[in-house]
């Protein structure tokens, strides 16, 4: 196990990555972390600062200066401002005399040279010379290399008695099967489930669980990165995020120290999820969306079904990333203009990427499965943040409808409710009317198109859905999903079916009336607003759950259009009055 952790530590590429893990480790060791890594430069050489007792020893102040990988000559005392020796000088010259909190000034100080790998032999004499020269009473230097960190991680996070019995093998299996991402993810999600099955009343256990999930996800991510296959890490990060929220959500409404620790631990997982998502998209997807058939060919399968499934999956991931960028932009607010600008840029890049992805990979013009509407809905939701996308959205939906109906008429690969891959391979069974009706007995695709046609004020498109219903789908229950009172309990862990559907969405009614009925259902119950992620401003989590567990996107997300309409209607009335 230690070897696994050591390899993980060694492969942490950026200093920020090692920074991210250390505070949690120290907290778990019982230390009080009073300075965490911020963005930009270090705080006078200190990356992380903590105070407390390790293994029952005296209470000391621990000041960490962190360097990723191995410490070589350049990293010790090179030209870079990230070199270690100047940082240590800063700690001695500036931080300790001037910035160490006054309550800790009377305590012994340990300056920790923290490296993910090892101090290389070529530079060891210089390091030892430096530490011997600068140590004094009440101030010593310690070397925290990969071995020590791995030992501490194993001891404080993954110790046998801290982990469920079968957790270690699950982690090992998920790492061993990275080449087969679905199998790897299966083991990792089992690991998450077992780590999460704690009595949630005991806060300490909850913190421990979230931190364990976090460290395991990190291990998986670094191994995945080395294997150049982030698929398992991506899926696992979604699952980890949702389970971590389930473990943490109660603490977001409270303010105790433990609750704050849990909040921090969850935020760390959210950041890691976003890091994995960004890395996956920026390295694997975004560079190729502008190439005709580029990503479709990358599936390297002779089955069009594989291409279709994979491309809609990628679409959903891109859209979710865009939604998180949008959320990040809102979170940073006007105070952090630089971050806000960065988020805006990300949104623009992802918007263009989605458009390119669709136009260059025509399989995205018709889902094979009805539940791919979930990915379509998330993409539409993201694109709807910008008015200028409306025509593209409508054109895309129009083509989806065209192809789906045409395909149904000529017994092609029309969208169906089948979910099993094997059943989909045999779809469609030509010339079998009963089969056709059976596999289209329900749909979220067509009512979703109707809903968005109504929102985008594309009456002609709405009418085409109505005609399709009348001509081909009288047997089909057009439906939309809403959360119910049990959703909060099951949404983040998919522990049971939940929510309710508006059956037989009345697309035969005029646009406005149909829309009112859909929206009325949003208003009738407060279940959506009572979802913990919604209440705490983390609404993208709902969409992550929808994508991850294949739950339809609720129309509540479109209520913004109603508000906008009300504004327009009021304005019209006002003008009429004048």
């Amino acid at each position, binding site marked *: 196990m230690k070897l696994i952790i050591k390899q993980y530590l060694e492969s942490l590429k950026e200093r920020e990555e090692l920074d991210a893990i250390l505070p949690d480790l120290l907290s778990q060791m019982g230390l009080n972390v009073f300075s965490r890594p911020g963005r930009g430069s270090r705080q006078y050489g200190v990356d992380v600062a903590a105070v407390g007792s390790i293994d029952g020893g005296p209470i000391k102040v621990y000041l960490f200066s962190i360097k990723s990988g191995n410490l070589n000559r350049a990293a010790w005392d090179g030209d870079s401002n990230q070199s270690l020796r100047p940082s240590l000088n800063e700690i001695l010259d500036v931080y300790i005399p001037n910035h160490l909190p006054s309550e800790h000034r009377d305590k012994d100080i340990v300056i920790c040279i923290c490296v993910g790998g090892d101090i290389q032999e070529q530079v060891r004499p210089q390091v030892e010379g430096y530490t011997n020269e600068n140590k004094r009473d009440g101030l010593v230097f310690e070397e925290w290399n990969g071995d020590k960190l791995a030992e501490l991680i194993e001891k404080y996070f993954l110790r046998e008695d801290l982990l469920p019995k079968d957790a270690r093998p699950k982690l090992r299996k998920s790492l061993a099967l990275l*080449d*087969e*991402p*679905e*199998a790897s993810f299966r083991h990792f999600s089992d690991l998450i489930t077992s780590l999460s099955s704690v009595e949630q009343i005991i806060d300490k256990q909850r913190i421990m669980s979230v931190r364990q999930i976090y460290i395991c996800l990190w291990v998986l991510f670094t191994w995945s990165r080395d294997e*150049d*296959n*982030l*698929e398992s890490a*991506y899926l696992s990060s979604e699952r980890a995020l949702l389970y971590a929220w389930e473990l943490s959500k109660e603490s977001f409404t409270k303010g105790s120290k433990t609750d704050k620790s849990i909040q921090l631990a969850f935020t760390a997982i959210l950041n890691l999820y976003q890091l994995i998502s960004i890395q*996956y998209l920026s390295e*694997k997807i975004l560079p*190729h969306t502008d*190439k*005709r*058939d*580029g*990503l*479709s*060919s*990358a*599936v*390297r*399968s*002779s*089955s*069009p*079904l*594989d*291409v279709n*499934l*994979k491309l809609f999956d*990628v679409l959903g991931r891109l859209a979710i990333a865009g939604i998180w960028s949008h959320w990040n932009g809102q979170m940073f607010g006007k105070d952090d203009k630089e971050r806000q600008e960065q988020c805006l840029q990300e949104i623009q890049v992802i918007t263009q990427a989605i458009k390119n992805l669709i136009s260059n*990979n*025509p*399989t995205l*013009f*018709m889902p094979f499965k009805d539940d791919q509407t979930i990915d379509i809905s998330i993409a539409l939701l993201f694109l709807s943040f910008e008015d200028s996308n409306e025509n593209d959205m409508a054109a895309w939906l129009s083509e989806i409808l065209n*192809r789906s109906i*045409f*395909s149904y008429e*000529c017994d*092609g*690969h029309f969208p169906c409710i089948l979910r099993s*891959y*094997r059943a989909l*391979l*045999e779809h469609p069974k030509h010339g079998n009317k009963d089969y056709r009706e059976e596999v289209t007995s329900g749909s979220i695709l067509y009512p979703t198109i109707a809903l968005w046609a109504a929102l985008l004020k594309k009456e002609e498109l709405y009418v085409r859905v109505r005609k399709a219903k009348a001509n081909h789908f009288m047997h089909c229950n057009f439906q939309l999903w809403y959360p119910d009172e049990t959703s909060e309990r099951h949404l983040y862990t998919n522990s049971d079916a939940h929510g309710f559907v508006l059956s037989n969405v009345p697309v035969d009614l005029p646009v406005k009336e149909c829309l009112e009925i859909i929206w009325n259902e949003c208003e009738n119950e407060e279940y959506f607003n009572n979802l913990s992620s919604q209440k705490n401003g983390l609404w993208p989590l709902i969409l992550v759950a929808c994508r991850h567990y294949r739950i339809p996107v609720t129309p509540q997300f479109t209520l913004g259009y109603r508000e906008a309409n009300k504004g327009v209607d009021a304005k019209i009335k006002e003008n009429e009055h004048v």
Partner: protein
Amino acid sequence: MNDLRLTLLEAQRDGNFLEVVVQSARGEKDNREHVTEELIALHNAGEIDLIDQFIRLHNKKNTGPDFFLTRNLFEKALPHLNAPIQKVMECVAHLVKEAGQDMAANWTLNSFIEHCVADPSRANEALSLIKNDPDQWGDFISPIIVAGTRDDLKYYFAETVNLASHEKIEIRKRAVYALGRINYQHNSELLNEAIDCLEKVVARESDDHLLGNSIKSICSICRPDHSKSGRAIEILNEALAKGGDLALHAASEEFGFNINELPEDLIDIIMHYLMRVNPNNKGTLDNIDYGVLKLLERDDPNSGIEFLENLLLANAESLTLKSFDSAIHGILGSKTNILNKIITRWLLKGDRVLCEGIREILHSIHGNDLVVELDTSELSQAESMQYMFIARKTIGYLFFKPVTCASIIISLMRQTNDLDLVKELGSLLFDPLLLNYSGSLYEYLKSQVDNESGETKTVILSSLREFDSYLEGLKSVGRIPEMFSSQDHRDAHARHLNQLFSEPYKEAMKNSIVNLICTKSLLLYGRKSINYFQHPTSGPQRTELELKNHGTEVEFPRQEHLDPFGLDYMLRLFRAEKQRIT
């Protein structure tokens, strides 16, 4: 007494006479004639009753001597045998019946005719038998009339005319048929009487079979004497108008087998009525197919092309060119290159049944795709806006023959000076053709660059460049393991494909020639098989058989994997497109 005679007599005694006869007649032709002569001699000498022997011959698979080979000996002997006519007729009727639906079933009747000709009293006696018991001997009317008229034309002709109005329809049918088989020896008076008789028959009768026989007889009368075609047209018209499938089938036989001897005006009438052929009647379609082939082989194949075209259009929902395999063969083998003419003409018309016909013709060519040069005389009638229509129809129907598609598009590009149109046509070379086929098509276009000039050359080059850049894009994507489908899915897909192909493979293997000429032997290991065969003189012989790789290559359109629906949608659109009528 020679050995053969002794053997035959012994066989008669042993009860295996027919087996021994066939055995003795094997080998050289002279041998057969010798056996026949011996059989005649033995029969006429009263040593053996051949009629009695051959009436025991049955057409059963795997038992007894070969039916047709044995019967053939009887047919050769019959004209020279002395035997009571009724007994002969019984034997002949039995042998015809035993032959079943075979094409050669009635050949014995020709020998019977010769038997009757050899002694004119036999025909007379046989005719009496028929009159006394028409139900039993009706099938002999035609051969007896044919035989009788060779001895006494007027008498037997008059008997035929009388029988044509017999109370029993089965007798009338055969008598009407016999009218067409008589050799009138250019006796104009009798010919006119025969036509009179046929006129009355078609006016009076409504039975489909009988009308069919009238058609065959009138055509038979007209074949050697085109001067009678004026009255024949009336008879044909009436018979075909009143008749059904059988009448049409009779006409199709004339069209298929006697088209080069029939007067043109009769052919026109027949072709007119053949338009309403029942597509379920394979035999009729086969006859039409032979007729079309003969029309296409003429110096001017236009009437054949037009007839085929009109026939397909008239039966667009129920008939395809697939039913006319001889015509397809004729089109492909034509020295006047009517293939290019048909392709141009039918693409320009754009009708589904015609365009599918083109596809059918091209699919029957094995090996490399055909390079087509459109027929300029047909193309001269097209407006330049119709060029895109032709190009899109080409892709819609011939997409799976990319080189042929490209050659047609390039051929169109050559025929126009409109630069925008050339570019528009050329864009199809890239999308969808090159986008889907990067093998033989790419090579063809590269080789074609040197043969072209001007804007056509520029556009081909630009398509190739565009495709190169597309390929570059695909290559630059490289390996993205995250995009791969899971092992489970790959396994399931492989199993699905295996199931999908194993059934058709088994079906195909059932009819494979490999099964007929080879025995199967499975080698579990190794690359060679060593066997020992026992040689009659030199003992065991060692043979070594080395296994060779055998394979075939089919280029599959790329979009079938990436966007099958989009591809299908586009092709359907191209196929369904109609010409704008201005």
